[in-house]
């Protein structure tokens, strides 16, 4: 039931919103859907923690610890984004960003686009999390792309069109590869299990017998899946769409994409990783994942060191963190998977905070430029600016914030796997990213007042920031037991060798 509720609530909200005219009502439906989805996700988590797995429809929908984790993280981001988005778009309305002075028709259409598409976006992400069928998984991942293309073009600027085009085309190519990989996996399973029908692509069916899958096929399949979902996750060198799309999308969309979508893509990859390691042993998948992980972290470094826009800075940080998760998975072992999933969890909490602060700054100053930007934001935004700095510290893995814990876990996994060179590169990259990030953000935040008006524009935009900041701080010191047991259960799924 929880699974169905999780899927139906956003779908319903989207359907209802399409017919609406009053933006305030759209907001209300949106907020309710967010709260409802989160409730459903928590419910799902509770069931999973109690029963181990939950499934529906003959195993078509299926949730284990891993699914529940991804679902609840998505729902969490969805939840915190909701009030923020309300405040964000209200300010857009006020500032007449949509380029009209008249009766508000354009802005109504725009808002409807957001309030209808975002639940759909959420729906497809939930579907990713709870699809047992690898084919449906692919369909759902593709669905996230489709639902978000027009969220990227939201502002209708030429650059946002450009970004959307790159996003769509690269996403299309990438997902084709993922589909190819899925087909090959199906083929490998087909040879072993023989039977036909829907359940033949169910992960829960494939996983136990993955050990007998044909090895060359699985090699090829994993390569294609890695490239495919890797494109979606923004692993280098398939990452190129990311800064454009994240930079051009409205801040709430950016937050969703940078966390929830990333989680979904990595999740899909992880599912295939399990099949591959069971078939081929850990070596093959690990070396590829480590390669791509390091490449992603490394490619983020120069762009973070030299950067003009703080929105794009966030995008590169997202590439960096995707790389860290993949690296953790690649290191393998008990700590590798745990590190990756902890990182996913903490990243999902921290990144939205960063996006919200950046969004507030951008709306306040009217620019996302670091260099030409006013500096001294601390004077203008008494809440968002310090939180921006706090979030920047948190996202770069500064203790006591929790990202340090997960990065440390990944490192430990690296040592356990005796990948010393990779570990050293990892640390060097992370330090360099820290340098670039902090340099830019402090340049933006600190300094003499720049003549901007002082004050936050709305509580809708500051309360989520404060709430998230509190969560980030608390998580730094104390991880609630259910969260840890969820993460740990999920990690065991990934690390377990039958």
């Amino acid at each position: 039931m929880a699974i169905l509720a999780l899927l139906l609530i956003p779908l319903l909200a989207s359907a209802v919103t399409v017919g609406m005219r009053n933006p305030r009502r759209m907001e209300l439906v949106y907020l309710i859907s967010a709260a409802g989805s989160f409730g459903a996700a928590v419910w799902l988590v509770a069931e999973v923690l109690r029963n181990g797995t939950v499934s529906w429809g003959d195993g078509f929908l299926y949730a284990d610890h891993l699914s529940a984790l991804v679902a609840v993280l998505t729902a969490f981001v969805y939840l915190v984004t909701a009030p923020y988005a309300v405040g964000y778009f209200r300010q857009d309305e006020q500032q007449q960003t949509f380029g009209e002075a008249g009766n508000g028709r354009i802005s109504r259409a725009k808002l409807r686009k957001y309030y209808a598409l975002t639940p759909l976006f959420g729906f497809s992400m939930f579907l990713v999390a709870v699809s047992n069928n690898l084919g449906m998984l692919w369909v759902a991942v593709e669905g996230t792309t489709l639902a978000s293309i027009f969220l990227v073009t939201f502002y209708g600027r030429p650059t946002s069109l450009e970004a959307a085009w790159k996003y769509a085309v690269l996403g299309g190519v990438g997902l084709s590869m993922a589909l190819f990989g899925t087909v090959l996996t199906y083929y490998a399973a087909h040879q072993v299990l023989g039977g036909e029908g829907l359940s033949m692509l169910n992960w829960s069916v494939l996983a136990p017998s993955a050990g007998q899958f044909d090895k060359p096929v699985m090699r090829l399949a994993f390569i294609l899946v890695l490239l495919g979902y890797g494109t979606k996750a923004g692993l280098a060198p398939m990452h190129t769409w990311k800064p454009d799309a994240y930079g051009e999308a409205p801040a709430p969309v950016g937050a969703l994409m940078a966390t929830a979508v990333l989680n979904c893509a990595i999740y899909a990859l992880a599912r295939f990783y399990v099949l591959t390691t069971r078939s081929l042993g850990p070596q093959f998948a690990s070396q590829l994942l480590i390669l791509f992980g390091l490449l992603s972290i490394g490619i983020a470094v120069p762009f973070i060191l030299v950067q003009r826009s703080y929105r794009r800075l966030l995008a590169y940080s997202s590439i960096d963190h995707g790389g860290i998760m993949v690296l953790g998975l690649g290191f393998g072992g008990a700590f590798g998977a745990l590190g990756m999933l902890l990182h996913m969890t903490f990243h999902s909490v921290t990144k939205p905070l960063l996006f919200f602060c950046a969004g507030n700054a951008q709306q306040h100053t009217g620019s996302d430029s670091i260099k030409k930007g006013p500096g001294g934001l601390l004077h203008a935004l008494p809440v968002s600016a310090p939180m921006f700095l706090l979030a920047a510290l948190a996202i770069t893995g500064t203790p006591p914030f929790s990202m340090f814990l997960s990065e440390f876990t990944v490192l430990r996994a690296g040592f356990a796997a005796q990948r010393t060179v990779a570990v050293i590169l990892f640390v060097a990259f992370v330090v360099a990213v820290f340098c670039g990030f902090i340099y830019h953000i402090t340049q933006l935040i600190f300094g003499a007042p720049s003549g901007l008006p002082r004050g936050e524009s709305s509580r809708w935009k500051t309360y989520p920031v404060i709430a998230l900041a509190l969560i980030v701080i608390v998580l730094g010191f104390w991880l609630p037991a259910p969260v840890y047991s969820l993460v740990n259960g999920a990690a065991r799924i990934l690390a377990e060798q039958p």
Partner: protein
Amino acid sequence: MWPTRELYTAGLLVYALGIAGALAGYAAKRTRRWLPGLLCAVSLLGALLEFGASLTALFVRTELSWTLASGVPYLRYTVRLDPLSAYFNLALSLLAASVSVYSAGYIGRSSVRKSPGLFCALLNLLLLSLTLVFTASNILFFLIVWELTAVAAYFLVVFDHESAEARKGGLLYLLMSRGGTGMLLIGFLLLASAAGSMDFAALHGIGQQLPPALAAIAFLLLFLGFGVKAGIIPVHIWLPAAHPVAPSNISALMSGILIKAGIYGMARVFFDFYGTVPVWAGMTVLVVGVVSGLLGVLYALMEHDLKRLLAYHSIENIGIILMGFGSALLFRSFGHPQLAALALVAGLFHTLNHGVFKCLLFLGAGGVVHATHTRNMEEMGGLIRRMPSSALYFLIGAIAISGLPPLNGFVSEWFTYQALLAGFGATPALTRMAFPIAGALLALTAALAAACFVKAFGITFLALPRSERAENAQEVPLLMRSGMAILAVACVLLGLGATWFLPVFDPITQGIFGVAISPDLVAGNGLLLTAGSTGRGSVSTVVIALALVALGAIPLLLWLVWGRKSARLSGPTWDCGLPGLTAENEYTATAFSKPLRMIFAALFRPRREIQTEFEVSAYYPTAIHFESEIKPTFETHVYEPLRELVLSLASRMRRVQAGSIHVYLTYVFITLILLLIFGARG
């Protein structure tokens, strides 16, 4: 039963309370006048509790430890107050107490008065995290509080963030500190993966069990990583950038104890985690110590920014401490636990001593800067008449840091000399020459330090004021003076009472080398300090102090006999016949250090520019414009090119993101083809 555990825990809680209270005060918007005082009193209370805990832990030799869970199994908040931790915690709490007293007077008057709540929160956070750094007993927990310290200190440095200098210095500090933490991460994890545990207790002597190559890598990484924080050359450049720009009470804490966190880490790693290290390791530490000491003081001499001068002296003193540590490592390698203990005591004692007098000097400098609104010594002068107490305290600090008897600096340097002297006889051929050379360079360092503090004190406090600001300076309030007084007294007590203090080191050396050293170092009913035995050399600061006073009676006597009736006039200083002596006639700080600038020109590469304006002939100039500048070698020759290189590489790399979808597709395509070939191959 001594309540060590209760005191320690209560101290932590009081600091935490301080943070919470200060934040509440910050959130309450309205700043009340009593708020800073109250918050500083909280810090003081915390410091006193910690002081009590450390003292009981050291003298009663109780070890305490407790653990809290975090929700993640391998992150345990384990603290352990073993002798080494307790010693550093003792130093911290002593300085924290005096800085708290000072701050109560300082905060309301300085640039931080706009939000004292936030400042005090950060101050308490710094104290709390430092306490935990010294007591954390789990790698992960240690690293967390380690970075927390850096972050708290960073925010304190950039508290006045409208100043570009503060931002720059703070940023440099934070970035370099992170680089150091990166090295620590790798180093610690190398050790931890050998031990299979992250608990410090399990890491004891783990260095021996690692393969030699890995042990060497871990050693160097940890040395360099902790070295960044300690400010060893060549990773010192953040120190002169960040320490001067921080509020003065923070500078005092940073130079006094924050950089000692690096020393603590080294002590922990060198002597606890590593047992006997190869000879090159000890030699590296010794050489780095000598170089840091010498270069640190040479750069200090060239400064006329009072606080930066002090910052460079921190580098110098870290060097002296490392000479002790390096000797201890070498002695251990050659199997002389007794000597190793002596050298370690020298290093550790100097750690505390430097903390005390450097903190004192920074607090004094803070008072001066507060009174004159400048850090430039060339605009000071004559302050001894306007700020007599501050001047006295500063002078005590200056004498102590110059290593002059009978104050504490002399004692620890004396031990260092003794350790180095003993090294010649205790080590084989090639190694042994290093010791006397190090000793000679230590002598040079100390003498240059004395020269530097003659300059620092003389130019700042003596003769005529060089600017209107110095003219109008006023003595700092009582609380600030009290903070300094505590430390000045500590300088004297640690100097004169060294023999009674030395037993503190017994549990430490007992734990590390199995030798309780203080019975050997003290003779003559606690009157004499010896170098292991009376025969090897001894000194008594108490007798020296008493004798100096007693011998001072001789001239007094002579004066009473002969000179009493003679006139004692006050008159103008001879002004070479010019109309009246002005501040322009005085020697400047730059002029004072000129001979050394010339002598060490190869190092400083001074650039000077003189422009003379004249109307009739060059012999009758109307104005002379003089500019002199030295190049900070490491900044210009190492870090600047490195930065340029990285940034230009990064800019080149950025072309990857060319903007063209076709290029992007090509990346994916090529990756696909390569992987397909790779996948098909086997």
